[in-house]
């Protein structure tokens, strides 16, 4: 029997706000333990939460970008459970009236668009962090307690580990475009849980779902789902049943292990948070926010494919990062010939950025400078090969390309007499390949071109070299 997997994702992202969800404390990452805390986020007796409007705005933007319905009226609830990193022993969250619901996230699967339905995206507060100390005791750092979280829940619309990965990458890109989160899994600002159900292919009811928690990377998600698929399939094949439970992914052993079973499931005793008034948004505000949304990554990718003629792969790489797409698009607008721009950006520029660990925020090459360089190639001032040298210098110094070309004497040699002189010298020094060529071995022609280019340090006009070399070889010698 064949089996299929059905996956729903729950993604928590920390929203990028200056202050926490319900107090004025900083949300900056990496501070010394318990330095970004106040009576409110510590849940001291007598404190009350006050909602951070910026967090609401961020959540609404995400909702709009996901095509969700934005609730004109939403409210907060308390989710009650005891945990030492939770100062109040309840979490302020949204239960039956979330800020946004019923949207979709389009993903590309085998070149076709598939819309993954989004059940809801709601606001809640983060908890603190337990620190297990060397002396065997446990401390708690509450710096993260109260940081606004957006929980984005999908419907079980994903059918493979790869689709889940695609979904997460698409979501991550979208959130980065919207500027609402850093989506940094190492720093915990993006956390994933996968609900995985394996069943015989061709339908059948959704069985008991296994929830996988604590996955700290996108590769981890992929491997955890693959492991879980095999585990559940093997169980079913042996006539067993899959129990509803929560499992933890352990990257070291590359397996999932039981964390909580259904019998121990929590009763969160949700009820409306009496310390906060409901969130009321008027249509006008929502529409105004809709107008400020940027072009979303997938729309941009499709435009690059349709209008710029880029491949799915190229356009995907360019739009994965908003800054990259912006850079590419500025160049393409200034220069035309999007494919040429794409090659230079994805080739030389990305290579250098990766090698030297430079991001777009500190990049010294401007789109104008890059386009100026391309124009130098077009008008014959430099060769394409020299272009690579020029871009490297631009990258290191931030100087304009014409200046680099002049300073370093990189102008293309198109002087026939000068080139003929070089060719003569090359032919003399390479009598064997010359003889071979004349004996009918066309292949050695390329070798000889290379020698000429080398002798001119790449500056020779390649077209002219070809012409002159051919002439010299074909006419001389007899």
């Amino acid at each position: 029997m064949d089996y299929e997997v059905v996956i729903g994702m729950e993604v928590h992202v920390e929203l990028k706000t200056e202050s926490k969800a319900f107090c004025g404390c900083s949300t900056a990452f990496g501070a010394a333990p318990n330095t970004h805390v106040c009576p409110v986020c510590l849940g001291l007796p007598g404190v009350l939460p006050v909602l951070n409007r910026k967090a609401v705005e961020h959540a609404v933007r995400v909702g709009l970008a996901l095509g969700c319905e934005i609730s004109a009226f939403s409210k907060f609830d308390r989710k009650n459970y005891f945990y030492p990193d939770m100062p109040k022993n309840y979490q302020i969250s949204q239960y039956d009236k979330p800020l946004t619901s019923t949207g979709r996230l389009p993903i590309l699967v085998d070149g076709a668009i598939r819309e993954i339905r989004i059940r809801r995206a709601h606001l809640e507060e983060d908890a603190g962090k337990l620190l297990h100390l060397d002396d065997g005791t446990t401390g708690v750092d509450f710096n993260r307690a109260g940081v606004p979280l957006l929980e984005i829940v999908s419907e079980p619309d994903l059918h493979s580990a790869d689709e889940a990965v695609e979904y997460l990458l698409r979501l991550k890109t979208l959130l980065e475009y919207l500027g609402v989160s850093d989506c940094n899994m190492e720093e915990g600002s993006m956390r994933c849980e996968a609900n995985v159900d394996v069943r015989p292919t061709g339908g059948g009811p959704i069985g008991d779902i296994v929830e996988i928690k604590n996955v700290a990377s996108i590769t981890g998600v992929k491997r955890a789902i693959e492991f879980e698929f095999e585990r559940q399939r093997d169980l079913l094949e042996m006539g067993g049943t899959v129990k509803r439970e929560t499992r933890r992914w352990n990257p070291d052993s590359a397996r999932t292990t039981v964390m909580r079973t259904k019998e121990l499931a929590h009763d969160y005793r949700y009820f409306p948070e009496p310390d906060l008034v409901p969130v009321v948004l008027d249509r006008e505000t929502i529409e105004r926010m809709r107008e400020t949304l940027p072009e979303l990554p997938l729309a941009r990718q499709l435009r690059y494919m349709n209008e710029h003629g880029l491949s799915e792969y190229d356009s995907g790489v360019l739009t994965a990062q908003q800054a990259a797409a912006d850079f590419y698009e500025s160049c393409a607008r200034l220069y035309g010939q999007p494919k040429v721009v794409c090659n230079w950006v994805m080739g030389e520029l990305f290579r250098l950025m990766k090698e030297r660990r430079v991001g777009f925020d500190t990049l010294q090459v401007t789109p104008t400078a890059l386009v100026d360089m391309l124009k130098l190639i077009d008008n014959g001032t430099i060769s394409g090969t020299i272009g690579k040298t020029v871009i490297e210098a631009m990258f290191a110094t931030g100087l304009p390309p014409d200046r680099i070309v002049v300073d370093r004497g990189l102008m293309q040699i198109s002087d026939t007499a000068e080139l003929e002189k070089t060719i003569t010298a090359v032919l003399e020094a390479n009598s064997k390949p010359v003889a071979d060529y004349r004996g009918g071995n066309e292949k050695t022609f390329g070798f000889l071109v290379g020698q000429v280019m080398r002798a001119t340090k790449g500056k020779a006009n390649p077209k002219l070299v070809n012409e002159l070399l051919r002439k010299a070889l074909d006419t001389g010698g007899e």
Partner: protein
Amino acid sequence: MSLLEQSLSDAAKAVRAGTVSSTELTRAALDAIERLDPTLRAYISVDADGALARAAQLDARRGKGEPLGLLGGVPVAIKDNMVVRGGATTCASRILDGFVSPYDATVIERLREAGAVFLGKTNMDEFAMGSSTENSAVAATRNPWDTGRVPGGSSGGSAAAVAARMAFGALGSDTGGSIRQPASFCGVTGLKPTYGRVSRYGLVAFASSLDQIGTFSRDGRDAALLLGAIAGHDPRDSTSVKETVPDYGAALDGGVAGLRVGMPAEYFGEGISAETEQAVRAAIAKLNDLGAEVVEVSLPHLDYAVATYYIICTAEASSNLARYDGVRYGRRLDGEGVHDMYRASREAGFGAEVKRRILLGTYVLSAGYYDAYYLKALKVRTLIKADFDRAFEHVDCIAAPTSPTTAFRLGEKLDDPLTMYLLDIYTISVNLAGLPGISVPCGFDQAGLPIGLQLIGKPFDEPTLLRAAHAYQQATDWQRRVPPIVDGGA
């Protein structure tokens, strides 16, 4: 006349005029505490040094001609569920042993600004849960009129302190009648403002949607003064309302002529003592004599108020009190693992009534019971609110008894929580509807125990309540009577 016999308003005036100093008033109050409190146990903690230092500072300010604020250096007491920076707040519970607040409640900030001197923190039912101040982990407070009786609860300490002249005024909190009922039992004026009128920031929560800070005073004029000092929007409390604060002092005068006073038939039915009914009816007749028009109104859902209240307040309390777990502050007992530690700490830290309510609240919020209890209670709450809305279409305020009986004996109802809960039947619906209410002394029973008249107003219409209370008190003198213990009797 002793310094302590004058009202808060008069004392503040006297300090401003320089005829008495803040230090003298403070010392007099501290002396009274020293003399009476070992018997009455109205205070949990008294900060004599702090109070005298503050009084001296205010006197120095006055000496330099600087203004002292509305309260002019007069000493007041605070219920021990409001936090004061650098001091202990216990909520009369062992679970808060050792807790020192790093911040001030908004009401404390505002009273400071108004020039108040803080004498100390007053006794209460643990976490404000109770109607007798017997559920205190510290001691049971005694009623100044009869030390064998309870002062009412949960703000019994504040009520007793004001009644016995151990403070010129006090703050309390009222979740289901916790200001009005003890005010009635102790013969003082107790005001529970509209929900949202006074910031709850820094009030240790019992039931967030019902809790409201209010005042204890000798009379309506003092209530107006205290309310004026603490009322107003607070950006730290989202449920505090952005309405402007009227001049409550200016609203006192004008009498009750033409005022339409509603008399709810349901409040004079079963369970009310004959003496209470007689006194309250007489008080309403008095208002009528003074020119008010008395109109019959109906609040048909009264019978459901107590049940509704205990579902909502216990649900919220079970969640609000979850933070007391021994992890960050307060009492911690060791246990094997974190859950054992929670269990041991909470078992030792909470008293019986608090545990009872946490269990009740946990139950009514549980999956499977939520709809039957909590959700239904919310619906009934809406009906109760609608009762008042309908009544207020015809009247300006409602007059009723505050409590069906006068103060009962210590221990008398301690083993019967249900009867105890029923004693709040006249006050609870006001909290469910978020309305303002005031209790003023309106007579004494044959045992010499005070009886309270409750006036209930429209949202944010404290001015009408204060005006009616003031008119009544101008025409009567129940509020001037002093418990015998104050003069060394009883």
